[in-house]
């Protein structure tokens, strides 16, 4: 029962984050919302494992957590440099 309540709360938070991801004026709003959606998915995965009595999805949750931060950094680097295959030390050209 308690896991059901927490799952409902996480799903409400996910729905609100999806609203912001669709409506966000700048790309950073969408990125923040995407990061929050990733965090919520990890929590939902763990809670769903407890809800069904088989808490073995936590390994997938750890993997999603690492992928989430890498995805945020990859999108940020692509936004700033327009290219992923560039070392981060150089200044971007003024476009």
């Amino acid at each position: 029962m308690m896991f059901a309540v927490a799952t409902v709360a996480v799903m409400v938070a996910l729905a609100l984050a999806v609203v912001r991801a669709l409506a966000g004026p700048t790309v950073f709003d969408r990125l923040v919302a995407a990061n929050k959606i990733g965090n919520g998915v990890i929590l939902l995965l763990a809670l769903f494992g407890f809800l069904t009595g088989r808490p073995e999805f936590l390994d997938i949750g750890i993997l999603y957590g690492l992928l989430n931060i890498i995805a945020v950094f990859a999108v940020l680097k692509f936004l700033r440099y327009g290219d992923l295959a560039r070392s981060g030390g150089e200044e971007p050209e003024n476009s």
Partner: protein
Amino acid sequence: MMSVVVDIVSWVLLLAGGFFLVVGAIGLNRMPDVFSRLQATGVSDTVGAGFLFIGMMVQAGFTLVTVKLAFLLLIFLFTAPVATHAVTRAALSVGVKPKLFDSEGRERQQVVEEVQRSKTDARPEPATKPKVENHAAPRKDGESSSKR
């Protein structure tokens, strides 16, 4: 008796975690600015996830599941502030301006210019003449938008 205590503790922790997550999501929708949205969602997301994971740990007991949950909590505690900081730095360097208001409700621009000036002072090499012109152009835009 013991299981009742464990249930009550994990009820409280899971409810607190869900509350913080929903509050962060509401702040993500209602705040006026990228930076305040980051503030609202980054902080409360970390706290809510921490409460939820600790609640699940209390329910799981001393098993391997608790160790995995502790690793997940550790990953959250490291990655959420780093991601928030990176998004903030990227938004400032691209040129997204925070909405600032003084005590009378008018928008301010000085703090943004001070931030950008300190950035150019910290790295004196790339501060060449075209960069100064680039900084001067949005400043005029900001003045005209504040007059409106």
